[in-house]
């Protein structure tokens, strides 16, 4: 923890905006706790299965009986609804599958959807918004009216249609040729049916991002240093990439952290509706959907995924709030 003394020393050294923000963020307890929670969830979801799969017995039956980390899709119909035990840390589900490993693999998918779709929407949204904001008034209003029209269409319906459309084309891709290098074939096999979902959510989720980006550009372009750049005779594209975009980063990062949970929720909704992750794979949305059937009989199947899911969403939201306060101190005073 930095003390006042240390901070004073840092000032002498000269302090970047980033380390300034970092200091402010560290003072926000909720944000720090959120970061720790997120880091823990990420580690659990991505590292633990890798460790668990390493050295696991090859025979799934032997593995299910002996190894601590189970195959999430391995059924044992003779052991359904088993309560939590040393063997099944969170018990088993309606098909006798290990809930703990399903939760972690489901987390991989939910977190990936959140991250990949957000990345796509940030790239598209920021580019679109920045261009609109820096173009002539006519181009700007034309581009933004297109956004308005897309806003008027029902998001979920569009995502469903779009992902079905893409997945028709993806069918040829899903059987990779033998000579592709290992990593790619593993990736394609594991997440092939998710790629349409990623693309669909990202490709239709950039609208708000574009509006935020445009507002930022409009704000920045009226400032003095831009006028200076213009009077120096720089090209429009140079001004946009060199001077405007770097100054937008703060607010965009904040907005991005708030977008991730909304995309995870979208995936959950889509899986709940039966579009999305393919059987027998799990995602948090699927676990919640299946768990909701056992409200009366085996509430554990609903409660456990709900806790993990809510925890992640809370953490992301608190982190986003904290980042906003840290990166944009003016905004937080409103």
């Amino acid at each position: 923890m930095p003390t006042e003394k240390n901070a004073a020393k840092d000032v002498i050294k000269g302090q970047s905006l980033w380390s300034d923000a970092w200091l402010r963020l560290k003072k926000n307890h909720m944000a720090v706790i959120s970061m720790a929670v997120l880091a823990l969830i990420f580690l659990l979801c991505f590292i633990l299965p890798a460790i668990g799969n390493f050295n696991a017995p090859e025979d799934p039956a032997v593995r299910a009986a002996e190894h601590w980390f189970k195959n999430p899709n391995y059924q044992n119909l003779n052991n359904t609804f088993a309560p939590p035990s040393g063997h099944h840390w969170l018990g088993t589900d309606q098909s006798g599958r290990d809930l703990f490993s399903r939760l972690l693999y489901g987390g991989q998918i939910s977190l990936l959807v959140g991250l990949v779709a957000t990345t796509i929407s940030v790239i598209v949204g920021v580019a679109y918004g920045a261009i609109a904001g820096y173009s002539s008034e006519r181009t700007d209003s034309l581009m933004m009216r297109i956004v308005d029209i897309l806003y008027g269409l029902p998001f979920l319906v569009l995502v469903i249609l779009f992902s079905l459309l893409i997945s028709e084309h993806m069918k040829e891709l899903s059987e990779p040729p033998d000579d592709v290098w290992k990593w790619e074939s593993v990736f394609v096999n594991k997440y092939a049916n998710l790629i349409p979902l990623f693309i669909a959510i990202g490709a239709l989720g950039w609208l708000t991002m574009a509006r935020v980006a445009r507002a930022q550009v409009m704000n920045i372009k009226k400032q003095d240093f831009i006028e200076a750049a213009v009077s120096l005779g720089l090209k429009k594209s140079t001004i946009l990439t060199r001077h405007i975009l770097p100054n937008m980063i703060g607010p965009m990062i904040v907005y991005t952290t708030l977008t991730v949970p909304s995309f995870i929720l979208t995936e959950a909704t889509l899986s709940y509706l039966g579009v999305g992750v393919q059987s027998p794979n799990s995602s948090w949305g699927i676990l919640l959907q299946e768990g909701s059937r056992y409200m009366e009989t085996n509430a554990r199947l609903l409660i456990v995924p709900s806790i993990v899911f809510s925890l992640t969403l809370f953490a992301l939201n608190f982190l986003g709030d904290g980042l906003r306060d840290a990166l944009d101190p003016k905004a937080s005073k409103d």
Partner: protein
Amino acid sequence: MRLAFILSPVLLMPFLSSCDKESPIDKYTEKKILIVGNSNEPAGLDPQIVTGVIESNIITSLFEGLCVQHPSDSGGSMPGAAARWDANEDFTEWTFHLQKNGKWSDGMPVTTADFLFAYERILSPDFAAKYSSMLYYIKNGEKFNKGELKDFSEVGVKAIDDYTLKIFLRAPIPFLPHLTKHYTWYPVPKHTVLAHGTMTERNTYWTAPESMVSNGPFKLETWKFNDRIEVIRNPHYWDADTVKLNAIRYLPIGNKYTEARMFFNDQMHVTERLAPEMIGYCRDRYPREFRQEVYLGCDFIRFNMTLEKFKDVRVRKALSLAIDRQLIIDKVTKGGEEPAQGIVSPMGEYKTAGIAKHNAELASQLIAEAGYSDGNKLKFTLLTTDRDGAKTYAEAFQDMWQKILPVEVSIEQREWKSYQDMMSKLGYEMTTGGWIGDYPDPTTFLDMWKKGDGNNRTGWHSEEYEKLLGKAELATDPAERIRLLRQAETLFLNEHPIVPIYWHTSVYLLHDSVKNWHPLPLRNQPYKFIDLKK
């Protein structure tokens, strides 16, 4: 703010109901209104167009065939639109004497003209009724339906006078009274149908609540889409004194959990069925209301026989042998069903051929012989619906197959209509499905596998199979007939165009106040005898 607004009625509910000493169900019981869970919005209410169980539940209260199901004896038939009937010695000629005071709900008499009109309508090729094969037993019925015969007077239905109907059959059918209880054999009001369109015009407004006229114990009162269908007592019904209920309300509730929760909250008399996950819970908590009865039906998996990958019978047999049916029943469906060894549900004299069994070793041996191994896996997609529990059911097969056989199975879930559509067009590879019998005879499960039958949906057909069925139909000795039918079933099962899984049970909740509701294997309880008492 908005959330609070949405939640407020939910939060207030316990207080509201505690103010009220009478539960909703008691009120309805007192008013003699039966509340029935009916799964989904019906596709229609025209007895000659619809094909489903959902529609059948409503239509049997509105219309009445020549005979009516006995309330407790599944093999018994009671007078319906016909007061009495007799057959000649070999059951090929039947005479039905209609009720002299039989009336439509608008007061017009029910006469033989209405029956002739209904049968001509369903058999007309222009009308394209999907279920017309139910009337192929009538002499020349099939020919007329296929357009080979233009003149309906050559079809074996004759009106001797306004109240005497003679039916000539193509073969001896001792179970004809059972057929007449099925909605395809119901009369329709000639005067009303013609007032709203021509005979062969589909989906006219004659089935709308303001215009529908029916001859059953009840008549249509309201039809609110996705809300309810209500039928009320028909004052012109010939046997109105027997009818106890004042009204029946059908609720289209697709979600089985919602339906069960409505029952727990005293909002319903009868549920449609219980989701597997609820069965154990309801058996313990509601022992008096819990019903588990034999239901004449079979669940199976269809192969698309037109596909190259399923051409080899060893592959199909291996996939059938790999399934542990008892385990599926105990752990997935949980309704106390019986593992199906064949397609025909056990009934009367008929014992099924018993081909479908569980044998993992033989299964892997057969698929290896067919040329598949871990390096060369058989890949296919299993189509299923998006209904509750369908996914867990399909995943159980997926896992069983992948554990013992070199196969790679993916699951595709489709919404009900698109699932039906894919099946009809043979746009699937393998699909889960089932069949509920229409009448208590093995042919209700065997006729559908004929070439071109709308319910076949596998692309499988066999001339020899149809020959055997034809022979069985003409057989006069019942024992000989059963032997031939069994032979046909054996032939069918040995070809493995389907994988039988289990024979159905009907598992549902029935409120204490419902009287005269007896278990029937077709679950076609006649509403006219049902009563409500606290």
